């Protein structure tokens, strides 16, 4: 009996220890105030990818450039909340409201994630939008030995072989699939969408000929294009890509982008809801100065991003119009799935 009791006490003590260490972790949240200039204390930069992912690298680059140009005086650690393509990051920020010492690198993907998940704990509405700093032009790549010289060639072939051609990309509900579905609707065509979780296999699927095309950002392809493995056949949006001045836009090729937002992918900074006005002003000051530095311009060129600082009502409007045009597309996606 005694040993039994002893055993029980032992187990209870250990269980308590586990709970205590769990509790100690939850208690580790600090309250950062702001000084009279609106400058917060220890800033943490929340991202929606793991180490090495797109937003993680982007946030680290921003911190690096801001530090090098003396716009901030200490390192901002990057904090990963990767679940649900921005959903976890948004609910994390919601819990932190209205603290000024948390900011996040957010992309248009966060809006899609919110639209896809009616039960989401937090959406973009629960954030303070600070500033958009860059837009990421989307373009179409095909293997170098592909018969398609232009996007119009691809569309013509897709018309001839409905439901046979394959586009490769990320998750089914990602922006590239949504955009492609709209183009299919506009042009009266239909093709398949092959999902891969990682970027590497997407490129090999193109090289192997399992997929005929991919819609993505310049960084997804630039090195392969330079090495002569892939070719760009069309650019979405109003402008040609500076790095590929000979590649015509969809509109120039007569492919309708009706119903698609002007900008499909952007990179912006947000904070928790009701962030103090002084803190928002501080961040806007830092980021607008940062987008004017030479380091930033170099980085934008390397990554095929276009520097575009948008803040205040203009940003709210951009987010609003994106949401309005994406809502029917998410519905379209769900119906295509059935």
């Amino acid at each position, binding site marked *: 009996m005694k040993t039994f009791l002893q*055993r029980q006490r032992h187990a209870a003590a*250990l269980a308590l220890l586990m709970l205590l260490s769990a509790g100690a972790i939850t208690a580790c949240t600090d309250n950062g105030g702001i000084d009279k200039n609106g400058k917060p204390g220890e800033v943490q930069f929340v991202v929606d990818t793991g180490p090495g992912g797109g937003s993680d690298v982007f946030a680290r680059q921003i911190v690096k450039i801001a530090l090098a140009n003396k716009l901030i005086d200490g390192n901002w650690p990057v904090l990963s909340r*990767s679940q649900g393509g921005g959903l976890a990051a948004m609910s994390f920020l919601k819990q932190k409201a209205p603290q000024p010492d948390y900011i996040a690198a957010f992309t248009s993907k966060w809006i899609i994630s919110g639209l896809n998940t009616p039960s989401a704990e937090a959406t973009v509405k629960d954030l303070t939008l600070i500033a958009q700093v860059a837009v990421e032009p989307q373009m179409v790549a095909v293997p170098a030995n592909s018969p398609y010289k232009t996007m119009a060639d691809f569309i013509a072939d897709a018309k001839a072989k409905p439901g046979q051609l394959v586009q490769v990309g990320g998750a089914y509900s990602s922006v590239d699939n949504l955009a492609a579905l709209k183009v299919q609707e506009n042009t009266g065509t239909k093709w398949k969408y092959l*999902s891969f979780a990682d970027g*590497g296999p997407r490129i090999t*699927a193109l090289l192997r000929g399992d997929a005929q095309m991919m819609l993505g950002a310049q960084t997804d392809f630039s090195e392969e294009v330079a090495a002569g493995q892939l070719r760009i056949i069309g650019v979405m949006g109003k402008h040609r890509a500076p790095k590929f001045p000979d590649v015509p836009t969809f509109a120039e090729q007569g492919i309708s982008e009706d119903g698609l937002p002007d900008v499909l992918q952007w990179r912006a900074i947000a904070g928790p809801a009701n962030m103090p006005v002084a803190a928002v002003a501080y961040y806007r000051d830092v980021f607008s100065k940062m987008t004017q530095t030479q380091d930033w311009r170099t980085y934008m060129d390397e990554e095929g991003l276009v520097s575009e600082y948008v803040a205040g009502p203009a940003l709210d409007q951009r987010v609003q119009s994106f949401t309005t045009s994406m809502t029917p597309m998410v519905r379209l996606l769900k119906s295509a799935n059935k």
Partner: protein
Amino acid sequence: MSVLTNLIDGFATAMTVTNLAWMIAGAVLGTLIGILPGLGNPAATLAILLPLTLRLPPTTGLIMMAGIYHGAKFAGATTAILLNIPTETSSVVLCYDGHELAKQGRAGPAMGMSAISGFIASTVGIVALTFAAPLAAQLAVNFGPPEFAVLMFFGLLLVVTLAGKSPVKGLISMFLGLLVSTVGVDIFTGTERFTFGSVNLYDGIEFLILTLGLFAVGEVLVNLEKVRGKVEKLDAPKRLRDYLPNMEDFKQSRLAIAIGSVIGFFIGALPGGGSTMASFVSYAVVKNTSKHPERFGTGAIEGVAGPEAANNSEAGGAMIPLLSLGLPGSASTSVMLAALLLYGVQPGPLLFTNHPEIAWPVIASLYLGTIALLVLNLPLIPLWVQILRIPYWLLYPIILILAVVGAYSVRGSIFDVYLLMAFSVTGYLLRKLEVPATPMLMAFVLGPEAELTVRQSLMLSNNNPMIFLERPISATILITTVIVVVLSAWGRRRQRRRAASAALHTQFVATAVVDTVK
């Protein structure tokens, strides 16, 4: 032969005193951080130390990362062997034989064999990288969804065959693993599966949570039941030479190291292939080609040498998609790629032409890393083995704290800590019911890839299953799998028949003897 000259240049750059010092520092740090369950996998260790390495010049920083990578990999093997806690997916197989060896007081030889076979395999990997790169690069491109699907099918079959005494219990465990692996948003259709509307389950369950619960905490819970003082303590070796593998061990492991090195290199060369599949396939092949497959799972040293060799030559193979396509083969190479980006170097197929001053020294240092590890860790093995001497009243609380901290730190989510507790109970129950936990963990790792690749293949072929036979590589793997299964079934039957006839013979002799006595 330009690869060879470039590689020699790379070695020359890597072998400056500063670079070597940082690499050694990296290997030590990597081992120390990696030894903590939860922080243990190489990708996480690299991520933790990323801010530190970024302060160094690019080449030195990347060389240090190579050191960290190897240190963490060795640490993963160490925790699996000593404590039965696989902190990274590629060390799960070590629990079959590595921990059994530790239980027999042979932890030292197991760890020594892990380091030495790793070193030999890295050598094979780097030589293969120099000479077989074009072949492997072609393979890397040609390996698509159908090829991966049959490879995963092969892998899942192996899970069943490795399940141990009771195939039914092995199957139960495997299906549990498959079930748990389906949790999350399905990327193919965007449908939520078993998420119960919680964002914490959107991206599925982290490997580390499952392994810490099933293995680390589960083991502690079971041992708590035993009356204090009666928990059988693992033997730590007493004499110095017991800490290292002996000649007999090497003789037994020769073939296993060779097989592991070759398999590891080619699987490592597949983008997304990774060290898990490499170590796992290698274990199965070593077991099936052994004259005494029955020794596996009871502490066979080849069962450590084979997978560890594969695990290390994989690093050489993983450089191939990076070299030819600019694509990372594993989570760890992804982190290294991220570091390249932060240094302002765009990784891609042109990395090796545009930045040879960075790319080749890194490959060279990946190799030097294994030497550093061997030199540093062989003498330290006796020290690590002392972990086994820590009294349980101290060791168990330490494991629990580390498990909780580890579970939290993966994604910074307290939900994962609760999940850890749930899996700990599962681990406890499995042990009580004598259901092996390893098949569950393996199925969890292989399941999502198996499912996804089958669906991708069928999508490509418009739901025609013939795609698996029409593509030459997938057909080859499939046919090999069938042959292996048939042969091993036949072999087992013959063995059983021989055993049965032997038994019959004994019975016959016995009755004859009885008769004569009468």
